[in-house]
């Protein structure tokens, strides 16, 4: 039984695509057969982050329209051969396909892959409905910002009303130093509103941006970096392993910060 997981957030720019790329690679490292599906029709990005842009020949649209076989549209990753990408059509918009078509093609992919990660577009319109049509579970991405949490909450409500019950939260771009100084809302505050299980926290890291621009997921490029370890841990948690959360605050809890906090309050 393969697991079909949609990565969604409501708000744009919180890191859905980056998380899809890295988590896919991390699951690949664990030896799983993974298919990444870019559901962001008209604004595709996932191929760029995976560094596979120049290998795209057919897109999901061609496979749906019967212009190519499904296996022709699936792009093999250049680093891991059990990882494939189904690119979105760039020239079409989100109304070009129907939820039933999306469901059909994803269930075909599910026959030969263990994990299917669907990168959902921002918003809650047609593109969102297409992306969640086939999903059995969801990963909600939220940054520790009020607007992001609000949108995530809306999306969780929509997912629940579509019968998706297994919903986990990834808090992305946490800046431990700012949380420590009470300048940023913390993970507890996010959980307090969303009240869904937390599956991982990804700290903010400059190397993420560099890796994205190079088209090389950080999980593979710099496996020892803190975000990469966080991704590996999320992959293991998806597999059912019990992995404790990284203590991101530890490095911040030094004597100088304690004193600074003391004088601020």
């Amino acid at each position: 039984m393969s697991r079909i997981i949609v990565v969604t957030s409501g708000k744009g720019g919180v890191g859905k695509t980056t998380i899809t790329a890295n988590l896919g690679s991390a699951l690949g490292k664990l030896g799983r057969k993974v298919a990444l599906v870019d559901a962001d029709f008209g604004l595709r990005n996932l191929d760029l982050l995976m560094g596979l842009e120049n290998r795209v020949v057919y897109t999901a649209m061609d496979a749906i329209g019967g212009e190519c076989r499904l296996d022709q549209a699936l792009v093999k990753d250049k680093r891991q051969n059990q990882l494939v990408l189904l690119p979105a059509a760039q020239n079409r918009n989100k109304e070009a396909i129907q939820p039933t078509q999306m469901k059909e093609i994803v269930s075909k992919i599910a026959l030969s892959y263990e994990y299917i990660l669907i990168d959902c577009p921002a918003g809650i319109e047609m593109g969102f409905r297409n992306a969640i049509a086939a999903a059995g579970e969801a990963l909600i991405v939220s940054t520790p910002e009020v607007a992001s949490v609000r949108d995530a909450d809306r999306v969780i409500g929509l997912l629940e009303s579509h019968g998706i019950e297994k919903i986990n939260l990834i808090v992305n771009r946490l800046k431990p130093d700012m949380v420590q100084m009470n300048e940023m809302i913390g993970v507890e505050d996010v959980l307090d509103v969303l009240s869904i299980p937390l599956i991982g926290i990804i700290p903010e890291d400059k190397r993420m941006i560099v890796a994205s621009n190079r088209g090389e997921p950080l999980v593979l490029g710099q496996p020892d970096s803190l975000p990469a370890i966080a991704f590996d841990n999320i992959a293991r948690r998806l597999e059912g392993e019990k992995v404790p959360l990284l203590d991101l605050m530890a490095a911040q809890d030094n004597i100088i910060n304690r004193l600074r906090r003391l004088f601020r309050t």
Partner: protein
Amino acid sequence: MTNVTKYLSLVNSYSQVHLKLEGEKLLLILPEGDKSIIDWWSVVDELKCRLNGSDSSWKSGTRVELIANYALEEKQLQGIAQALEEFKLKLKLVCTSNRQTAIAAAGSGFSVQQEPHLETVVDSSQTQSQELAEPLYLKTTIRSGMEVRHPSTIVIWGDLNPGAKAIAAGDIFVWGRLRGIAHAGSGGDRSRHIVALKMEPTQLRIADTLARAPSANPERFEPEVAYIATEGIRLAKAMDFFKTHSFSETIGAWR
């Protein structure tokens, strides 16, 4: 509470979807709001959300009768039937005065009852004077973007999150955190209350008055009740409210 002098107009407490248990069967009423703004997706979403929150209220396999007077297509009817099926409910009968809906229902294999005078069942203008319906009990978190409307009292066993709205002609009880917008007595009844275990609202509205929370919310750990006093909406400890306050019809406020 900071009170705002602007007064609210009366709000229709009927939502786009209304569920009512009548003996062994469940009535699903889709009231006819402003036809031009009926957004079909949101109707289905609201139906699912409502089913999700109150699925313990009826037995599985309960027979459902749909009452809708606007034009529905076969696909939309099937969408409703499918949503109901997810919660183990069976759509059997479609009551409608609309010809297109009747034809679509017959085409999808549902029993049809064509009745021209159904408007009276769901006419919102006369519900205010009628006795209130049974309370609505929801065991779920009401999340941002959701709006729960009910012509009687609403009880929520969960949080009312920021961005969410509850509108009741009766009282509102939130057995959790109230952080969104709650509007009690939406039909104009100034004696209604809003009660929450933890009161952190964006706005509170009772009948035609409105108040927003002070920007610096003092931390309180007791259940609180909001009511209309002479100077506007006030908060009090929920525990002793009825011992210390009584409603005065002449000034239309509690004291």
